[in-house]
C-alpha cells in the first residue's frame, strides 16, 4: 500500500493513528482528577509534539542515515520561521505561502551551509554547523534587528495588512488555512473527560504524517541505501568510484527543509518568532530528541520529541501546591516528607529530571526509547516462548 510494505506499513499506520487520535490518547485523565496535571491533550502541546516530531524526523534523515552529526539545525528552523512570518505580515495570512517560503528559504540556507560544512566530517562537521548556527543566532539577535526584530522577535502587529488578506480596521491578523483559523477548536465533553479538537493541530498532524511517509520512502529508497553506505564506510564508497558528496549534500538539504517546514508550522500555529530558537541549545535539543528516541529508526525521533516536550511543559508546571494536593490523602508528616522528596525534581527542578532521564536512557538503553520498547516486547515474547518451550518439554517427557 502506498509503496511501503510490511513492518514499515504497520509503523506508518501506527503513527498516523497516534497522530489523529492524539487529542483522545493524550487526555487519559478526567479534568477534575488530581492526575489531570499529566494530561497533554491541549492544542499548544499537541502542536509542539508534531512540529518537533517533524524537525526530528528530518534531522534523523541526516544523522540517522549518514551519521553526520549536525549541531546547527536550529538555524534552519529559525530561518524558516522568519521567512514564514514575513510572508504572513506582507503577503497572506493563509499559512500555505508562509510554509512554502519557510521550506524554500531553509533549503537555500542549508545548501549554503551544507556545501561548506560537508567538506569536513566527524567532529569538524559538527563544529562547522555549530559555528554557522551560532553566527545566525548572534546576528539575528543584534545586527539584523531590522529584519528579525532582535530579542523581541517578530509578531503580527495591528498595522500589518497583508496584500492578499482583508483585515478589518484595528484587528490583528490571525493565521488561517482558507478561512479556517488555526486557533479554532471545539471541545468534546464525555463524562468527566474533555477533548479539544483543534484546527491547527490537525493541520500539523496531517503535515507530520505526510512528512513521516516521505521519510519512510527516503529510508527505503536506493538513495537511502546510498546514505547508509556513507555511514558504514565512506572510504570504501569513494574507492568504488562513487562520489558521496552529492548524496550527503542532498540529505543535508532535505533535513534542512524539514527543519524549515517545522519552523514554518511553528509560526503558523503561534505567530511569533524570536532568535532564541536558533541558539545552540535548540540545535542540541533536536540531537537529544533523535538519540533519545533512537537514531536511525523511523519512529524514534518522534517519540524523543514527544518525550522532551512533555517534560518541558508538564513537569515544569508541577509546583509545591500541586504536590501537596496529590499527597493530601496521606498523614501530615508523610505528606510533607513525600513533597520534600519530589519537590526538587519538578517545577523549577524540571531540568534536573531531564538531565537524569538523559543519563538513564543513554546508560541503560543505548538505542534509545525504541530499543526500550523492543526490549520490553522481547521480554513478553520470550516469556511466551518460554511457556511454549516448557509445554513442549512437558509433552516430550512422557513420550520418552
Amino acid at each position: 500500500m502506498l509503496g511501503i510494505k510490511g513492518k514499515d506499513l504497520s509503523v506508518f499506520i501506527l503513527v498516523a493513528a497516534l497522530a489523529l487520535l492524539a487529542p483522545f490518547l493524550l487526555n487519559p485523565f478526567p479534568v477534575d482528577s488530581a492526575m489531570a496535571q499529566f494530561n497533554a491533550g491541549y492544542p499548544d502541546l499537541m502542536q509542539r509534539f508534531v512540529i518537533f516530531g517533524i524537525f526530528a524526523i528530518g534531522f534523523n534523515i541526516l544523522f540517522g542515515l549518514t551519521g553526520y552529526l549536525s549541531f546547527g539545525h536550529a538555524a534552519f528552523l529559525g530561518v524558516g520561521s522568519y521567512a514564514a512570518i514575513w510572508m504572513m505580515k506582507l503577503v497572506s495570512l493563509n499559512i500555505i505561502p508562509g510554509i512554502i517560503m519557510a521550506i524554500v528559504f531553509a533549503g537555500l540556507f542549508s545548501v549554503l551551509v551544507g556545501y561548506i560544512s560537508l567538506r569536513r566530517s566527524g567532529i569538524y562537521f559538527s563544529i562547522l554547523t555549530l559555528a554557522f548556527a551560532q553566527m545566525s543566532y548572534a546576528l539575528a539577535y543584534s545586527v539584523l534587528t531590522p529584519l528579525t526584530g532582535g530579542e523581541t522577535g517578530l509578531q503580527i502587529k495591528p498595522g500589518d495588512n497583508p496584500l492578499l488578506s482583508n483585515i478589518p480596521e484595528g484587528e490583528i491578523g490571525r493565521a488561517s488555512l482558507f478561512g479556517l483559523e488555526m486557533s479554532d477548536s471545539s471541545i468534546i465533553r464525555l463524562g468527566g473527560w474533555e477533548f479539544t479538537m483543534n484546527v491547527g493541530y490537525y493541520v500539523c498532524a496531517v503535515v507530520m504524517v505526510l512528512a513521516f511517509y516521505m521519510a519512510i520512502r527516503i529510508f527505503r529508497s536506493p538513495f537511502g541505501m546510498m546514505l547508509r553506505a556513507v555511514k558504514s564506510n565512506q572510504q570504501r564508497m569513494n574507492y568504488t568510484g562513487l562520489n558521496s558528496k552529492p548524496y550527503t549534500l542532498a540529505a543535508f538539504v532535505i533535513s534542512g527543509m524539514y527543519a524549515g517546514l517545522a519552523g514554518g508550522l511553528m509560526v503558523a500555529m503561534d505567530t511569533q518568532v524570536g532568535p532564541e530558537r536558533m541558539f545552540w541549545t535548540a540545535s542540541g535539543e533536536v540531537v537529544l530528541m533523535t538519540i533519545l528516541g533512537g537514531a536511525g529508526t523511523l519512529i524514534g525521533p518522534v517519540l524523543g520529541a514527544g518525550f522532551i516536550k512533555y517534560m518541558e511543559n508538564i513537569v515544569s508546571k508541577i509546583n509545591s501546591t500541586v504536590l501537596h494536593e496529590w499527597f493530601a490523602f496521606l498523614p501530615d508528616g508523610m505528606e510533607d516528607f513525600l513533597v520534600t522528596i519530589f519537590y526538587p525534581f519538578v517545577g523549577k527542578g524540571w531540568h534536573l529530571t531531564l538531565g537524569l532521564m538523559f543519563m538513564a536512557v543513554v546508560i541503560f538503553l543505548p538505542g534509545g526509547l525504541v530499543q526500550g520498547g523492543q526490549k520490553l516486547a522481547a521480554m513478553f515474547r520470550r516469556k511466551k516462548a518460554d511457556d511454549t518451550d516448557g509445554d513442549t518439554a512437558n509433552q516430550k517427557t512422557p513420550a520418552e
Partner: protein
Amino acid sequence: MDQIIVQVLNGLDKGSAYALIALGLTLIFGTLGVVNFAHGALFMLGAFCAVVFSRILSLSHEVVDETRTDFLGNPMKIDVPYMHDIFGPELGASIIDWAVPLSILFSIPVMIGVGFAMERGLIKHFYKRPHADQILVTFGLAIVLQEIVKAFFGANPIQTPAPEAFTGSFDFGVLLGFDPLTIMYPYWRLVYFGFAALIIGAVFAFLQFTTFGMVVRAGMADRETVGLLGIDIDRRFTLMFAIAACVAGVAGVMYAPIVAPNYHMGMDFLVLSFVVVVVGGMGSLPGAVFAGFLLGVLESFASMPAIVELLPGINQIIIYLVAIIILLTRPRGLMGRKGVMEE
C-alpha cells in the same frame, strides 16, 4: 597603541581560561577518546569550590544586638565568623580575605575526587560507545551537576572577591615607557594569567619528563600497542581524567573573582572551548593552548569600539568565523598532527 596593548592583555586573560579548559578537554579526548560535554560543568564546580570554601571560612554564629532592630522590628542578629573567635578578629579577617587562593588547596582534592568518581562511575562505560552517546550522557551529567549547584546556591551570581592585596590595578604602561595611568591592568587578572601559565607548564612538564607522562603520551598515540606491552593503561587514564578535572577546577577557582560564579557559567564556556579544541587540532595539547590564547586575543580585538563600528556584529561572530576559515583551509587544526582525526 596603548589600547592595543590593553586588548592583548585582555585577550591573553580570556585566552588563559579558554586554554585551561581546552587543555583538559584535549587531555580527556586524546587519552580516553571521550567527548566530555560536562567539562564546562567541572570548571563551574571549581568556581563553586571557591564559593564553598569562602563560606566555610566565614561560617559564623549569631550574636543578638539589642541596641538595633531588623526590618520586622525584632532585635538585630549579627553574624560573627568563627574564624574571628579562633584567630582573633584581625588574623581571622585576613584569612577570610584570602579565601580564593586558599580554596585552591581545597579544590584539588575535591576535583580529583569528582574526576575519579566520574571516570570510574560513568565515563569508563562509554569508551567504546559512539561519540553521540558520550555527548548525550555527559550533557545530561552537566545538566544534573548545574541543577544541583542551583538548588543549593540559587541562580544569582555570587560575588567572590580576590584578596584585598590584589584589588585595584597595576600601571602596566609605565613599564613599557608610556605615560602613567595610560595602561592600567587589574592585579588579579595578571595573577590569573601567570597562574594559567604555571598550570600549563606543569601539565606539559608532567607529560614530558615523567615516566607516567611518557606512558600516557604513548597511550595517546597508540593505545593498543601500549596495552599489549603489558601496561595497565586504564588505571593511568583514570588518573589523567582526574588531572584534567583538576585543571578545569583550579581554572574555575581562580576565575571566580573575575566573573562572579553562577550555576550556568560552565555552559557559557562549553561551546567556545570545543571550538578552541578543534581550531587547535584535536588531540594536540600545544594546539589547544595556542588556539585558546589566539581566539582570546582575536575576540578582544574584535570587541574594540573602532572595529565594531567598522564591522557591526563582528565581536559576536569572530570566533566562529575564525573556526570556519581554519577548518576549511587547514582541516586538522592549527597544530593537529597529520592523519589524526582528520576525517
